[in-house]
C-alpha cells in the first residue's frame, strides 16, 4: 500500500503548496505595507545623519546611544538623556490619564446604551459613531473653539458674571486631556458596549435577588463579564494617545513636546533622521512591552468571558 501512501503524501504536499500560493498575495501585502517600511526605519536608525537631512550609508550606533544618553553640549560629559526621558514620561502619563478618563466616561455610557431597548440602542450607537465622520483635525479645532479665552465656555461664564476674567484652559495640559478624551472616547465606548450587549442581565437580577449591593453587582458580575471589552478599549485608546500629534500641538500650544513632536523635530528642523528612526522604534518597543504586560496581567486575574 506504499503507493496509496505516496499519493496521499503528494496530495498533502500539493495542498501545502496551494495554501502558500493562495496566501502569497496577502503575505506580500503585509510585507510591502507593514514590515517593509518598518525595516527601512530600523535600518535608518543605524546609519549616519546626512549634512542637511537624509542619511549617509555608513553604519553608526550613535542614534541609539543618543536615545538614551546625551553628551552635554558644554562640558562634554555623558549622562542619561534627561530631555528624552522627560518627554517619554510626559507622553506616557498623558496616555494613561487619557485612558482612565475615557474609561470613567465610557463605561457608564456603554452601560446606558446596552440597557436601552433594542431599537433605541441602534440610535445611540449611531450617535456615538457620528464624530468619526469628521476629520480629527476639525474635531480638535472644534474643541479649541469651545475652550479658548474668547470661546463658548469663557464667553458664557463671563456674561453670566460667574468669572471676571477668562479661565486659561487652552494651551494647558488640561486642554490636551479634554481634547484627547473627546477624540478617543468612541474607541473606548464601542468595545465595552460590544461586550456589554452580550451580557445576560438576568445575572444582574440574580445578584440583586441574593442581596448584593449595587457596587457588588458592578464589581463582581458586570465588570468581570465586560473585562475583555475594557481591555480592548484601553488598548485602542492608549496606543494612538501615545503617538498623538495633532491634538497636543493644536491644544497644547507646542510648548512642551510629546513623543510625536520629538520624532518630527528630528526629521524636520533637527535633520537627524537616524535619531528620529531610533526614537520611533523605541516607542514601538515601549508599546509592545506595555501591551504584553497589560494583557498578561489582565488575563491572569478573573475569569474569562467571551
Amino acid at each position, binding site marked *: 500500500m506504499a503507493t496509496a501512501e505516496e499519493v496521499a503524501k503528494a496530495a498533502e504536499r500539493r495542498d501545502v503548496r496551494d495554501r502558500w500560493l493562495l496566501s502569497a498575495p496577502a503575505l506580500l501585502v503585509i510585507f510591502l505595507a507593514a514590515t517593509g517600511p518598518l525595516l527601512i526605519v530600523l535600518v535608518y536608525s543605524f546609519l549616519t545623519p546626512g549634512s*542637511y*537631512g537624509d542619511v549617509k550609508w555608513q553604519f553608526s550606533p550613535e542614534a541609539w546611544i543618543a536615545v538614551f544618553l546625551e553628551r552635554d*553640549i558644554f562640558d562634554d560629559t555623558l549622562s542619561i538623556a534627561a530631555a*528624552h526621558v522627560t518627554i517619554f514620561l510626559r507622553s506616557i502619563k498623558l496616555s494613561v490619564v487619557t485612558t482612565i478618563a475615557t474609561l470613567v466616561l465610557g463605561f457608564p455610557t456603554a452601560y446606558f446604551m446596552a440597557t436601552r431597548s433594542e431599537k433605541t440602542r441602534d440610535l445611540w450607537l449611531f450617535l456615538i459613531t457620528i464624530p468619526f465622520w469628521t476629520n480629527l483635525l476639525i474635531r480638535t479645532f472644534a474643541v479649541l473653539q469651545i475652550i479658548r*479665552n474668547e470661546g463658548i465656555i469663557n464667553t458664557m461664564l463671563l456674561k453670566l458674571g460667574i468669572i471676571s476674567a477668562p479661565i486659561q484652559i487652552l494651551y494647558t495640559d488640561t486642554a490636551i486631556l479634554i481634547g484627547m478624551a473627546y477624540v478617543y472616547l468612541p474607541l473606548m465606548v464601542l468595545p465595552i458596549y460590544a461586550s456589554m450587549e452580550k451580557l445576560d442581565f438576568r445575572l444582574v437580577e440574580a445578584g440583586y435577588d441574593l442581596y448584593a449591593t449595587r457596587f457588588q453587582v458592578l464589581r463582581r458580575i458586570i465588570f468581570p463579564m465586560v473585562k475583555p471589552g475594557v481591555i480592548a478599549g484601553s488598548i485602542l485608546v492608549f496606543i494612538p494617545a501615545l503617538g498623538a500629534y495633532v491634538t497636543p500641538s493644536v491644544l497644547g*500650544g507646542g510648548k*512642551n513636546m510629546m513623543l510625536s513632536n520629538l520624532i518630527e523635530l528630528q526629521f524636520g528642523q*533637527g*535633520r537627524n533622521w537616524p535619531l528620529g528612526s531610533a526614537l520611533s522604534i523605541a516607542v514601538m518597543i515601549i508599546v509592545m512591552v506595555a501591551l504584553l504586560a497589560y494583557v498578561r496581567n489582565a488575563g491572569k486575574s478573573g475569569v474569562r468571558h467571551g
Partner: protein
Amino acid sequence: MNWKTTATAMGLALLASTGLARADGVLNIYNWGNYTSPDVIKKFEAKYNVKVTITDYDSNDTALAKVRQGGTGFDIAVPSQTYVPIWIKEGLVLETDPGKMENFKNVAPEWANPDFDPGRKYSVPWALGTVGVVVNTDAYKGPADSWGIIFNTPDELKGKVNVVPEMNDVIFAAIKYVGGQQCTDDKAVLKKVRDTLVAAKPNWIAMEYNTIEKMGAGDFKATSDWNGSALRQRLANPAIHYNYPKEGYGLWSDNVVVLKEAKNVDNAKLFQNFIMDPENAAGLSAFHRYANAITGSDKYMPADMKDAPEVVIPAAAKPQGEFQKMCAPEIQDIYTKIWTELQK
C-alpha cells in the same frame, strides 16, 4: 496634504512619461502654501499659453527632502536664502543664469549679487522679509523694539506671548539678545542662549505658527513673527504693531530656482523672467504681503503696503538687520539640542 502632493507628483510623472501633456504647455510650481498670487499665475498662463500647477510645502526641510528623493515632476521651487546654497551644492538646481535675463535690469542693485547665489546664476528673488516682534498695544504700551519682549517678558505680557517655533529664527534672536554672532560656536554664548531661552519659556503661552488668527482673536498679545504676517494682523486690528528689535533682527528672502530634473525648462525660465517684471512682482507682493526686490514695483503696489512700517524698514532700524545664514551641521546639532531642552 502629503497624499495630495504624492498623488499630484505621481499624476504628473505619469503624464510626462506618457507624453500626454505638451511639454511647452505646462509648468509645475512647488512653493510654500498660501504664497502664490492666483492673479499673477492667471496672467502668466494667458500670456504664454501655459497651464500652471501649484503644489504646497510647509517647510524648507520638507521641500529639500522631497526634491532630493527625485521624480517629483516639479519644475520650480522657492527655497529660502539659507537653503539656496545647499540646493546648489547638492546639484538639485539648474544654472538658468537669470542674471542675463531680459527683466533682470529691474532687480534692485543690493539684490543683484547676493552671497547665497553670487551673480544670480540660479535664483530670482520672490519675496523679502524680516523677523521681528509683534505687540498688541492695547495690552502693553511700553517700548517694544527689543527681543526682551520675548526673552525677558514685561509683566503685562507674561503668559500672553507666543513664539513662532522656527528653530533657527528663535536661536538667532536669542543669540542677538545675549550679544553674540549668528552661527557662533562660542560655548559661553550658547550657554547664555540656552539659559535665556529656558528661563523665558514659563512666560510664553504657546509656540505656534498660527499667529494671524490667534493675535486677532486675542489669544496672544505678543509674538515673534514674520513681517508679512504682522501686516495682515495690523490690517485686522490697528492696535497690533510690528517692531524691529534693536539687538538685531533677521532678514530673509525666498528665491525661485529651476530644478535640474525639470521637464519644462523653457517655461520655468519664462516664469523666472516674468516675475522680475515690476507689475508682476507687485502682484505677487499684494498677495503674500511681503516686499520684493524689484525696482519700479512701488507704483503698482497696493495702497496699504506702500508705506506700511512692516514692509518698508524704517531708516533707524536698517543697520540692525542681518541676513540669516545656514550654520554648519555641527552647530545645527547644538541648536537642536538646545531646542529639545527648551521644549522638553
